[in-house]
């Protein structure tokens, strides 16, 4: 297990290194820092001098070395717009996005497992057929459209839910959370449902098809032959085997969910990373864009590593491969 973890962490580091190269490349090609940092009144000579001082005339690998060295210490440059370290801005915006992703994942988990399992066990029931039909619709409608329709229905027509913002926040250290107040929950409900609207149907279908395949296997037939109850066969014998591929895909999809926050946050004016990212693109705030990329990359690598470790716990053959 430990060998497996070390190998996995090593792989994670390589991925992070590659992300840093891409981040650096973007920084090099998006905008001119001198133009962004200086005003109109600065003369051409001063600009040249400034450029030299910032090290922008050094060869790219020296610049990359500096970038990487700073990045390791958590310094990803200063946001042109906020005039503050990009890392600081990211960390300030991250809780909003992470909470949104967390609540969406919770929704996906709470609904996809029972619905997927049910539609696998009773594939011919009316409910399963209706579920499969509606899940196609769910997958097909883009997130921003779902979001706008929800705002129209629940905020404008019914005035049940607020249409923008995070509501009342409670500060826990540096983390502003909306999950401790009712107002916060009312605000997060619609964005998280909208965000989960793509992944939920996918997960239901994934769990259903995996489970149906497992139910056809010999060891399930054998479990029936042992006289076990439906509950035991479905939820212990079949479900545990269904989990393996679902965990793998789930980890990747969680990363995709983070990407989808850009759309959701824009529609709901959700003050998170996605919203910040859109603003940074408009302002061509290169350090902030790079910081966003690095942050999301690291979160994804982290999530995938955790998912792999969980997979190792569920799948006995993986564990052995690590030990021996």
């Amino acid at each position, binding site marked *: 297990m430990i060998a497996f973890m070390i190998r996995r962490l090593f792989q994670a580091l390589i991925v992070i290194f590659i992300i840093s190269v891409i981040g650096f490349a973007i920084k090099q090609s998006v905008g001119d820092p001198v133009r962004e940092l200086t005003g109109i009144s600065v003369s051409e000579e001063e600009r040249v001098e400034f450029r030299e001082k910032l090290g922008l005339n050094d060869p790219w690998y020296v610049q990359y070395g500096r970038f990487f060295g700073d990045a390791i210490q958590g310094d990803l440059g200063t946001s042109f717009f906020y005039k503050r370290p990009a890392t600081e801005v990211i960390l300030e915006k991250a809780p909003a996005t992470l909470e949104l992703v967390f609540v969406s994942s919770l929704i996906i988990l709470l609904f996809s497992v029972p619905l997927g399992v049910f539609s696998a066990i009773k594939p011919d029931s009316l409910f399963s057929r209706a579920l499969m039909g509606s899940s196609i619709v769910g997958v097909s409608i883009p997130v921003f459209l779902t979001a706008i329709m929800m705002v129209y229905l629940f905020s404008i027509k019914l005035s049940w839910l607020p249409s923008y913002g995070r509501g009342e926040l409670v500060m826990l250290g540096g983390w502003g959370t909306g999950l401790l107040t009712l107002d916060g929950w009312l605000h997060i409900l619609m964005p998280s449902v909208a965000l989960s609207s793509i992944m939920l149907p996918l997960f239901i279908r994934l769990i259903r098809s995996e489970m149906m395949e497992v139910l056809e296997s010999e*060891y399930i037939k054998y479990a029936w032959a042992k*006289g076990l109850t439906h509950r*035991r066969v479905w939820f212990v014998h079949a479900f545990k*085997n269904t989990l393996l591929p679902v965990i793998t895909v789930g980890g990747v999809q969680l990363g995709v969910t983070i990407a989808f926050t850009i759309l959701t946050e824009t529609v709901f004016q959700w003050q998170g990373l996605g919203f910040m990212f859109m603003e940074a693109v408009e302002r061509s705030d290169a350090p902030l864009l790079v910081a966003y990329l690095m942050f999301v990359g690291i979160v994804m690598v982290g999530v995938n590593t955790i998912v792999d470790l969980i997979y190792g716990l569920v799948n*006995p053959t993986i564990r052995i491969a690590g030990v021996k």
Partner: protein
Amino acid sequence: MSSIRSYIRANGMTSLLEVKDLVIKFALRTGEVTATNGVSFTLEKGERLGLVGESGAGKSVTGFSIINLISKPGYIASGEVNFLGEDLARVSDERIRSIRGNRISMIFQDPMMTLNPVLTIGTQMTETLHQHNPQMSKAEARAIALDKLRKVYIPSPEKRLGQYPHEFSGGMRQRIIIAIALLTDPELIIADEPTTALDVTIQAEIMELLMELCETEDMGLILITHDLAVVAQVTQNIAVMYAGSVVEKGPTAQVVADPQHPYTQGLIAALPQSSGHGERLNQIPGMMPTLKNIPPGCSFNPRCPHVMEVCKQQVPSLRSGKNSNLAACHLYPPEKDNPSAR
């Protein structure tokens, strides 16, 4: 054997298992297909019966029908499966579940596919015990599991209980499956091609083990196989199946030495040891019909060397041949009084 039977019948004892005119059908989209057509056989307590035939003859589905576990869309259309006088084809789901894995155990064909890959051997053993004896303590169940593992000669069973199936070889896994079958001291074991997926050297080992355990534990065995040599070694009686029907049955030694039905004769002639050294192996010409196009009359008639006009029109009933074997063949005069004779 027949003397034991007449003794049992005379004393009014019920047979362990009596399958009577079993018809199994598959409801396919293109229409219904008959998988077995009136299969009948009887098994006494402690008796070992071989169910022999080619792939697709309906042996496996017959075996699974005994515990009412035919894969959909198959179902028992008619007939009876009397287990100690109780018709298992008609009992409640609850009742049949209390018999499965408890009083009738199954051994499947491929041990690599039969055990659940994500559960330990210990879990897969004790869950059966707990299922059928809800009051049993964990320690008790563990002790029984260990005892059965020892019976199938698994070394250091204490350590093995915590391991997963992938840590065992095929032969070991089949031993474990036999141990699972023994857990609840069943009256009957149904083994569906238990050695087909194993190495030849291990095949003999497993068969010997199974036979030994059936004898010491006084368990009935239905051995489903296409391997006549294995059946001859292990069983006392044989039922030969062809295209969904039993075509011949009788004491194993007699069926092998003096087969009555032309199909059985062909099967035995096809054994490699029946051909002389350096000769071509014998084979039955043609192929077994698929379930969808079984010919009218005797289903074997297109391949039969002794085919007569009557064979193409009338389905032959089981009747005595030249010895006490029963054969479904028009070569022998019918027994009018008792069509499903034993």
